[in-house]
């Protein structure tokens, strides 16, 4: 069931509250990257993807791969709010008895389509899913979110070549372009920029959007779906820490746990409860 943009905004707000709460309770995790992808994931799970939480193994379902697996609190929150597992499970993040691993595990967590976390691998796993679905006559799309720093990995470009060779039109990749990676700004750490011309040169259908704007996310996805001859790349400009002002512009929140005061400040910013 598709929800409208106003409702997507509200779900994304709740998911951001979940992200901060999970990481605060777990005492571990990556808040900045999870907040960065929260709107993309919300749009996919609550508007774009053809899925059924009652049938997580449905063969005809659309697939999603969070290639930047360290942002998984956003994915876990979306899956819980979609009904794949109880919302109360979120409090177990990264603990021994929980199914919510530090990075996504397709066999432990209902609704996770691919194990991910070591960077660079999601696009090629997604390509395999697209090629398999085509061979098996299944009418479904595969969506991947990568980080921007992540696409420094060589295997990304191996996949980029192969997806064009096989005209993998049902592969739609979002690059979460928040401009930061673990050690600092992408432009300082690597020679990655410019991003879009590289994908264009590899033969992909390319678009550029504001990654916190639901109308743009949905429209760009529809454009991508309409082009079945080329794989699609959507470069989504995002903000690391989006929604929690004191995390924005401070890359120490790549992986960091809020103090009690910071947790309360974040909850106030997000309109959540300071429990």
């Amino acid at each position: 069931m598709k929800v409208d943009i106003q409702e997507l905004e509200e779900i994304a707000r709740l998911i951001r509250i979940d992200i901060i709460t999970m990481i605060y309770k777990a005492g571990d995790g990556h808040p900045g990257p999870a907040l960065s992808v929260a709107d993309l994931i919300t749009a996919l799970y609550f508007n774009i993807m053809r899925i059924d939480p009652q049938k997580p193994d449905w063969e005809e379902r659309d697939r999603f791969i969070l290639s930047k697996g360290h942002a998984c609190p956003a994915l876990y929150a979306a899956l819980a709010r979609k009904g794949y597992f109880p919302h109360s499970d979120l409090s177990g993040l990264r603990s021994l008895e929980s199914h919510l691993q530090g990075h996504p595990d397709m066999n432990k967590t209902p609704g996770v389509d691919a194990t991910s976390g070591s960077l660079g691998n999601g696009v090629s796993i997604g390509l395999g899913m697209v090629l398999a679905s085509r061979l098996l006559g299944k009418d479904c799309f595969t969506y991947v979110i990568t980080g921007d720093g992540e696409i420094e990995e060589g295997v990304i470009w191996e996949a980029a070549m192969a997806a064009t060779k096989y005209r993998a039109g049902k592969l739609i990749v979002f690059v979460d372009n928040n401009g930061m990676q673990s050690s600092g700004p992408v432009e300082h750490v690597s020679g990655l920029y410019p991003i879009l011309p590289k994908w264009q040169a590899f033969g992909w259908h390319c678009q550029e959007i504001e990654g916190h704007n639901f109308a743009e996310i949905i429209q760009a996805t529809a454009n991508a779906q309409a082009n079945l001859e080329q794989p699609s790349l959507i470069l989504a400009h995002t903000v690391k820490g989006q929604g929690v002002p004191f995390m924005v512009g401070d890359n120490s929140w790549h992986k960091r746990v809020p103090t009690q005061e910071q947790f309360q400040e974040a909850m106030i910013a997000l309109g959540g409860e300071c429990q």
Partner: protein
Amino acid sequence: MNTIGDTRAAFMQSLMEIAAEDPKTVLICADSRLVVKGNAYVEKYPDRFFDFGIAEQNAVNCAAGMAACGLTPFVATYAGFITMRACEQVRTFVAYPGLNVKLIGANGGISAGEREGVTHQFFEDIGIVRTIPGITVVVPADPSQVIQATKAIHKINGPAYLRIGSGRDPVVPVDIPFQLGKLRVLAENGYDVALFTNGFVINRVLKAADLLKQQGINAIVVDVHTLKPLDSEAIIQILRRTRAAVTIEDHNIIGGLGSAITELSAEAHPTPIIRIGLKDTYPRSGNPDPLLDYYKIGITDIIGAARKAIQQKNLWR
């Protein structure tokens, strides 16, 4: 004395038979179609063949994605490019999720890599895959065994690694059916010493056992083709009887058959064991037989090791 066969062609022959019966089987290559003699397959099953070019990491990840959607991909290229170049993809995206991907590694061992030199001689592959949980690991003896082993790994639901050779591989004259996870006794002259072996050096071991017999030493020759799961109970039973053993393999003495047997022995039945294989060094280019002799994987080396193991057994008494 050796008849020469082709384990690469044998793999492909077996895959053709599997593909005829199982429409979910696909072949994935990394510019390795000719290496694994895939032309006839590609002609017959063009939609079930994927060549991703010289890009093994992508090939293995694509296989993982395909398996997650219900296909059974066979990824076939050089052993080292699967187990080293794409090691992390094998470990994290195939083995950890337990996906039904079959990995076929060509040029397994220094003899199969022969004149290509170190870049194409793979003597660490078994050690690498053995340390990754959840992969079935098979080192078949010759073409006939490869045909049977390929069908056997297709029948199990989960990751498997199968080693093949150069395409000029010795045929073992003893014909005992392949059974996944079960060792094969190729000669049972007696129980003075056990010669555990696998892969393309088996004929050397059989010859050594014959010569030992002429010298009054009676050995049992055991093909341990499946290293995971290891046929532990049967191996321990043999060790109990012989109380002395030699392992002979075309692999580094670290990580492969020698390690598997000595690890088991150390915990279950401590026994003097001499390991024969590449002694933790880099080999040179050369023809297979002189190469194996040069690196002390020769018939006289096996005989010497058997005598030494028996000597140690007698000292242990």
